[in-house]
């Protein structure tokens, strides 16, 4: 195989592009100069053209006669994802935001309800004490109340009368 060893890789690429009509004018002129002045380059160009033309011997396959009909039948049964109208899309966006806000509110409330101490609950639980707070304030400590109870001074008579 005769191969032009005088061409650089760039010149080889330019030669192919020149043969394909893809080279700009200054580069094309340079390639033309090379072809005119160098037998090996001229031979290389000829071989590139002929090898490229040999691809024409390949048989060109055609689609079967029923291809179009089969393809159309197949695409028609495929589900169509309809493009939403602008209004429908806007409504969908708003609905999504609304649902998100509601969900955020529910989650926030649940968290607050679970972890944040409820002062009202504490008051409710201690309501009996609060209702008698004035009386309890009068009593300095419970030890005195126990001694009073143990003394029996305030025990009620068995017949229920006061003496």
């Amino acid at each position: 195989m005769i191969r032009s060893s005088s061409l650089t890789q760039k010149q080889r690429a330019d030669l192919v592009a020149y043969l394909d009509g893809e080279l700009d004018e200054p580069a094309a002129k340079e390639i033309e100069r090379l072809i005119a002045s160098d037998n090996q380059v001229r031979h290389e160009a000829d071989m590139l053209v002929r090898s490229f033309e040999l691809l024409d011997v390949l048989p060109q396959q055609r689609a079967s006669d029923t291809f179009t009909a089969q393809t159309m039948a197949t695409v028609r049964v495929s589900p169509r994802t309809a493009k939403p109208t602008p209004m429908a899309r806007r409504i969908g966006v708003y609905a999504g935001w609304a649902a998100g806000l509601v969900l955020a509110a529910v989650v926030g409330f649940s968290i607050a309800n679970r972890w944040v101490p409820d002062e009202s609950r504490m008051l409710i639980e201690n309501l009996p004490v609060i209702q008698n707070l004035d009386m309890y304030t009068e009593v300095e400590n419970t030890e005195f109340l126990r001694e009073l109870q143990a003394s029996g001074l305030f025990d009620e008579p068995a017949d229920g009368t006061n003496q």
Partner: protein
Amino acid sequence: MSVATSDTSQIPYLRDPDVQLMLRAQQGDDEAFAQLVAAYQDRLVGIFTHIVANRETAEDLAQDVFMRVYRARDTYKPAARFSTWLFRIANNLASNARRNAGRRKEVPLSIRDSGPLGPRPQEKLIADKSALLPTRQLARRELCETVRAALDELNDRQRMALLLHKFEGMSYDDIAVTMEMSNSAVKSLLSRARENLREKLDAQIQS
């Protein structure tokens, strides 16, 4: 129905008649889509046959391309010529097919390959018929096999670029868009493809 010509100045690809058909398909015109299928089916099957070397697989891949185009019609925007966009889809499918299935070469059965029981009657019939073929036809068939083998020995990207350039007449710019490469990369790729092809067919050319 077609897009108004006043719009073509703003979107240059609107002048492409196939883009017009695709826009009609986008509006629900299945007949327009059928026209696109009919226009491109042979070209797609041809390209795929050179790549996968199997007619049935090539038709399946071509149908896959049209399915993807049909599914994408709602969001289609003409950012390139229709053929460029179509063959970009084809290129991606070809790459996937080759990656998933590997290359299956169809080796013509010869008498020598028949096994220990000798040639089957059909094989003998084929061999006999070959012997009756005019020499010219036989030579052409052998040349075709040689060229096909040379094409098969290129790597996937070189082969695709060569096929698009040769059989689709695509420019370097179009190939760059189709294969998602730069123009200079396409130039380099085609240069190597053409050189490799030339080397492998040197004996055929010299004879």
